[in-house]
């Protein structure tokens, strides 16, 4: 149950960070709604925004739109821009109609967008007013998923951070795990912690408003996602203490993450080994298969989700890849520092983006694999580069032991495909 060994040539924590500003080819925080609404089964996410916001959600959600999803956009119209009082009344009317049609909704999130932020539509006041109007059945909260304030996964961070202040107070020494995980992954995690005798374990976000957890000065918490800086700060404001750890990607990451919590709760080394030895071995074997394709290959991460440093650490240490550049939209030392310690020295570490300059570096580096968004993937493939589109890493179960092999395979598949295609004539 020892801490992970740092790399021989040192890690990246002290490496200079290339900070760039310019055109960013990234999603805004509204995108988080797509996976959050599936996790929180009694919640509805109402974006107050423009047709662009609705179009973005539609483009990102694909066929999910047709399954009566629990999100929608209140599209601002010309008349809403004229006077503030009017917009609030319009919002009340739309919310009342929505809640009347969907009696299963217990939590409503008013999600701010760029247009609603720029016209300074006060959604926090609206949330207070609507909470009173629809109490006790429905609780209304608000957060911003706007592009001017949030990048992609930061939307989840903003949502969870908005929930923290209204969590009930407790004095119990609970462990709280923050970050929305696919149910299958969450169950595995709960099973592992339970087998070590750690508990009760609470999760944020919970499935339903009624099984929500409490927080207080004796709560300790761990993060399963590297993009939860605001949530972390909000939990610390409630007196909870963060257990810093690498993130549970790959065999090493999962072990280190579990070890940090086990140490907090005084789990013996024997017990820890008894619980983790078998799944560790399974994970190692599964990763090894995919790593055959990945070993010795170079990888370039464009900024997307704040998972890049953790994934680069996994690919470098467990799959034998060489990261050339690892870029994240934001780097928070308290959260990403432990990962940077483990990432072998060498790659450029970048924060932010100027996409044209970054693409110049991609072309100069000619990495074996480029991890990037869907707007860039096909154009880079057409230039002869192999790409892995990043958004899949957020939607697919990739955390913890049983998914470690799948995670490696996500990166191996594009390389295998490039080798598999034979499109020339025989002569």
């Amino acid at each position, binding site marked *: 149950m020892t801490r992970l060994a740092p790399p021989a040539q040192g890690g990246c924590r002290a490496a200079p960070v290339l900070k760039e500003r310019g055109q960013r080819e990234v999603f805004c925080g509204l995108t988080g709604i797509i996976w959050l609404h599936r996790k929180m089964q009694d919640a509805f996410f109402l974006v107050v925004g423009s047709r662009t916001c609705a179009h973005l959600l539609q483009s990102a959600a694909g066929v999910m739109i047709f399954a009566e999803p629990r999100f*929608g956009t209140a599209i601002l119209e010309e008349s809403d821009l004229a006077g503030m009082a009017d917009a609030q009344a319009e919002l009340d009317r739309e919310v009342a109609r929505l809640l009347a049609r969907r009696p299963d909704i217990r939590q409503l999130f008013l999600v701010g967008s760029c247009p609603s932020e720029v016209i300074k539509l006060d959604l926090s006041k609206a949330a207070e007013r609507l909470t009173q109007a629809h109490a006790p059945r429905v609780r209304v909260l608000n957060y911003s998923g*706007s592009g001017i304030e949030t990048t992609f996964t930061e939307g989840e961070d903003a949502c969870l951070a908005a929930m923290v202040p209204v969590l009930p107070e407790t004095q119990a020494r609970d462990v709280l795990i923050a970050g929305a995980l696919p149910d299958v992954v969450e169950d595995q995690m709960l099973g592992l912690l339970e087998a070590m005798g750690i508990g009760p374990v609470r999760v944020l976000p919970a499935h339903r408003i009624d099984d929500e957890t409490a927080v207080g000065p004796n709560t300790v918490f761990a993060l399963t996602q590297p993009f939860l800086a605001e949530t972390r700060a909000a939990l610390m404001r409630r007196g909870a203490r963060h257990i810093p750890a690498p993130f549970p990607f790959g065999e090493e990451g999962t072990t280190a993450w579990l070890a940090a919590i086990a140490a907090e709760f005084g789990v013996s080394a024997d017990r820890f080994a008894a619980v983790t030895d078998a799944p560790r071995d399974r994970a190692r074997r599964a990763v090894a298969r995919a790593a055959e394709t990945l070993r010795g290959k170079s990888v370039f991460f464009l900024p997307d989700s704040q998972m890049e440093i953790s994934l680069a650490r996994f690919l470098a240490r467990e799959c034998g890849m060489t990261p050339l550049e690892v870029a994240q939209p934001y780097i928070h030392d308290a959260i990403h520092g432990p990962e940077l310690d483990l990432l072998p020295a060498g790659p450029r570490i970048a924060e932010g983006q100027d996409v044209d300059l970054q693409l110049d570096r991609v072309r100069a580096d000619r990495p074996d694999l480029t991890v990037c968004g869907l707007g860039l993937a096909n154009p880079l493939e057409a230039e002869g580069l192999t790409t892995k589109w990043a958004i899949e890493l957020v939607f697919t179960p990739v955390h913890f032991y049983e998914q470690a092999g799948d995670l490696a395979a996500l990166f191996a598949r594009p390389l295998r495909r490039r080798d598999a295609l034979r499109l020339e004539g025989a002569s």
Partner: protein
Amino acid sequence: MKLAVWTYEGPPHVGAMRVATAMRGLHYVLHAPQGDTYADLLFTMIERRDHRPPVSYTTFQARDLGADTAGLFKSACQDAVDRFAPQAIIVGASCTAELIQDDPGGLSETMGLGIPVVPLELPSYQRKELFGADETFYQLVKALARPQQRTEAVSCNILGGTALGFRHRDDIREITGLLAEMGIAVNVCAPLGATPADIARMPAAHFNVLLYPETGESAARWLEKAHGQPWTKTVPIGVGATRDFIAELQRLAGTDAAPDDSRLRLPWWSGSVDSTYLTGKRVFLFGDASHVMAMARVARDEMGFELAGMGCYNREFARPLRALAKDYGVEALITDDYLDVEAEIERLAPEMILGTQMERHTAKRLGIPCAVISAPVHVQDFPARYSPVMGFEGANVLFDTLVHPLVMGLEEHLLAMFREDFEFHDAAGASHHGAKAMRRAPDDAPGPQPTGEVPDQVRDGSGYDIVWLPAAERELKKIPFFVRGKARRNTEAFAAERGVAQIDIDTLYEAKAHYAR
């Protein structure tokens, strides 16, 4: 405010992107916050383009507001011109930038960029994608087209093709071939494939061929006014429309040359006996107005369907669509709310839907056959194979597209003949699904099945209850599932009309006789 989940159209700046991405040598500098780059993936993924859309975003963030968003815009403009060396740029604001009022047009004009700068005013809170495309193309033509001599040989421009257009790539190839066979040269095809320099020489053409009124009509009208170029009014979708289109071309070009129609197969396919069962199939049409209006003629006059209803989501074309619907004896549905469309489909209970991606999903839910005839469409409707919907090959494509979702005639007869056999009973499921899939009966809502003894109650429009007696209900079940919905609806309408409160076997067959064609 209006609550929306699905939108048929994106915001107007996406329309401008469709024009910019269609063209070469043009760059779009868009004043927009972080995140608006999502629209790039419509082009790189759905249309599968192998290059990034030629769009630079200023990507302003909260901390820039009140500071120097105007400065950000100017540097983005300068960077784009330096890096991409376009022949011209278009500049504009997305919905958020419209609110901060930086005036991209004014800012870029003062920069002395040395190339034409075309500012766009796209009101994001009033208008939508198709308006954005039409307006952008119009502004480009107005800014760039130069007065000049007509070409010596008769020539035309092809207007309206854009990126993300439903079958634009192949329609244009089909129509270009047709024009060539008539001895008419294409001067410029725009926006699709054109450069700003090409736009400048558009007035050299003798007339304009407008294939997509939604995205090219404003430009066509302006070229007519400013440069005296007449334009075609027929959208050549279907056999009849293509022939009318050819006649129009002959008048405009002063020729009696006709294109080769020997590869046109729709008329014979539609006339052959296997197509007899298509007669009177009730279809509902929804999409952009131009495709719906053209397809109404194909459906009724070339496939022998009956129109159950038609509608469009682009309000700009509501008037001509309403007029046409009246001619066809159906009501027009003008809405951009897919739930309204779904309600109308449920009300009309058509046997087939011709619509967009949304109607495809609605049809799937209701168990009704469906074919896609209009944007918005998903990735599978940007096919690798040649698939125009215009001209003679387009007609062939349409015949196949419209027939495939329907059960073929022979299959229909076999199913009716053997329907009591064990392989064909209602709950048997499709054999190609390994008999695991339960077929969805369009008529029987999921939920508890009627026991056969409890009469099924329905309520007609007058609020008066009609009861299906168990024997009639059983008899109804003997009718093949794909026509059962129609039989049930007809019988109930027949009963309601006559004030019959209980439907028995006689009522069922009376109604059948009444509606017999």
